[in-house]
């Protein structure tokens, strides 16, 4: 078995899954201009909502994914309205800190309802396919395709729908957008809805390959943040590129680093990219 191509494939798959919540995180940053750390708990909520739909209601992957999206989006909107929106006028960092407090609250609400037990989705598991000396799992492939479809929908929606255009306008220049008659509050709510929805869907997609518990979201927030920063905070194509850099970088790192330092890859990628491009690979707020 050739290691390098195999690690590349593993990295691409991981990176594409990472891209979904990274898009959500970066979109919220682009419009509301603060790093919303509560993506951790929203990813967990998405994963549990998908679990409930899949295991309790017997839904297959795609409807369960939609359910994960909707639940995380709704929780995101409600909690934003109560906890974060009133604090945004006091600065990005105040809101960011409050979003961490929100994470603690939401994570423990999941724990209160579901307990700490590990839970697995009720999906058939298949052995990997082997081609040309590398292996790829049918389920990984399915997740990859789902991730690519979600990304396509996001890009098309931003480009061609009124809402998408409004979001881009606010991200670009809120004052100008307001002059054009776009209500920034409404656009903000929409962004939280779709952003947290994507985070929730991403949480479920990442959770499909493992088992989930209330800490599920915490396991991948660092790579999500790293992906968004490397690509350029607020840039949606940037977050996809960033996710690929982090995903592939983490998997390839075991060739040169001890596997125990996998998480350090995100940090080094950030430092290296930011030394040369202080606003990330694609710069900021480029939709």
């Amino acid at each position: 078995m050739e290691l390098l191509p195999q690690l590349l494939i593993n990295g691409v798959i991981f990176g594409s899954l990472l891209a979904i919540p990274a898009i959500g995180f970066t979109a919220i940053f682009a419009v509301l201009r603060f790093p919303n750390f509560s993506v951790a708990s929203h990813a967990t909520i998405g994963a549990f909502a998908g679990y409930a739909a899949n295991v309790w209601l017997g839904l297959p992957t795609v409807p369960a994914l939609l359910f994960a999206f909707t639940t995380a989006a709704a929780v995101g909107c409600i909690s934003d309205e109560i906890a974060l929106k009133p604090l945004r006028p006091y600065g990005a960092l105040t809101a960011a800190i409050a979003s961490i407090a929100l994470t603690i609250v939401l994570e423990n609400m999941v724990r209160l309802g579901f307990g700490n037990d590990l839970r697995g989705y009720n999906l058939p598991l298949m052995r990997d396919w082997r081609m040309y000396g590398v292996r790829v799992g049918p389920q990984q492939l399915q997740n990859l395709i789902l991730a690519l479809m979600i990304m396509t929908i996001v890009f098309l929606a931003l480009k061609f729908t009124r809402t998408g255009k409004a979001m881009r306008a606010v991200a670009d220049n809120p004052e100008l957008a307001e002059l054009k008659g776009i209500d920034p509050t409404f656009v903000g709510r929409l962004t939280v809805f779709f952003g947290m929805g994507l985070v929730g869907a991403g949480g479920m997609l990442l959770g499909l390959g493992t088992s989930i518990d209330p800490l599920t979201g915490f396991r991948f927030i660092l790579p999500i943040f790293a992906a968004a920063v490397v690509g350029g905070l607020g840039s949606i194509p940037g977050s996809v590129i960033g996710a690929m850099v982090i995903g592939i970088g983490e998997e390839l790192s075991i060739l040169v680093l001890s596997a125990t330092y996998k998480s350090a890859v995100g940090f080094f990628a950030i430092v290296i990219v930011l030394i040369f491009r202080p606003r990330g690979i694609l710069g900021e707020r480029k939709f």
Partner: protein
Amino acid sequence: MLSYFLANLTFAGIYALLALGLNVIWGMAGMINLGLAGFFALGAYASSIATVYLEFPIVLGVSLGVMVAATAGGVLSQLSLNLRGDYLAIVTLGFGELIRLIATNETWLTNGSDGISGVPGPFRSSLTPLAFNAVACALVISTVLVAWFISERIRKAPFGRALRAIRDDEMAAAVAGKPVRLYKIQAFAIGSALLGLAGAAYAHFNSYVAPDIFRPLLTIYIFFALTAGGTGNTLGAVFGAVLVIALLEGTRFIEPFFESLSGVQAASIREIVIGATLIFVMRFRPKGIFAERPPRPLGTSD
């Protein structure tokens, strides 16, 4: 009960040192540092390694801890000077996790996830636990007073005013001829020194350091302390730290009221109450309980 009270006062003092350190970096200079736990760890590990493996006296160990943390703070801020706040937030967050990874994996230096036990405490072996807590508490409180005094001096000095100018409008400060880069690095290093001091104090009080101690949750608590107390206000930083410990400990006593719940549910409710209280405090006092007041210029009387 008294022993418990003293111990928690000591923890509050250590949290206050952390909050004061963060106050210099964030409150005064406006740079975010989500890697607090990492600097706390540097101070704790440097002092523990020096006193346990090299058998340095505690005072020397603590000074070493302060120096290591300050140096790391200076270097990290030098590397990340060009970054805006949100980027710095994530870089420092990553830095904190990197320190924890190193502490976990470089067993030759840190004894890995086993941690370093038997870190000496001042007079610990010859005192009862209660007396030791009293000594530790007195030492930490005096350290907080000194740190508080230094913070106030910085705040009122020209350096502190320049920092606030940089925080509020970096461009204007640069135009006004302030050495912005140098001041920012200095502020980060001074703040990190206080974080390292807190770490060293923690190690000698607790007599044990291990990577698990330095999880990001600690960073979050300190941010709450400072935000709740009042960013940029030294008194607020200390008060906020006491408030956070009071909240963390006080919530233990609500658990008996939820007897019908399982252990894990009661524990979840405790954490929900902690998180929700912090959100409420921030929502209704967004500038903190003690808002920042610009100091009077030196030399004017009350």
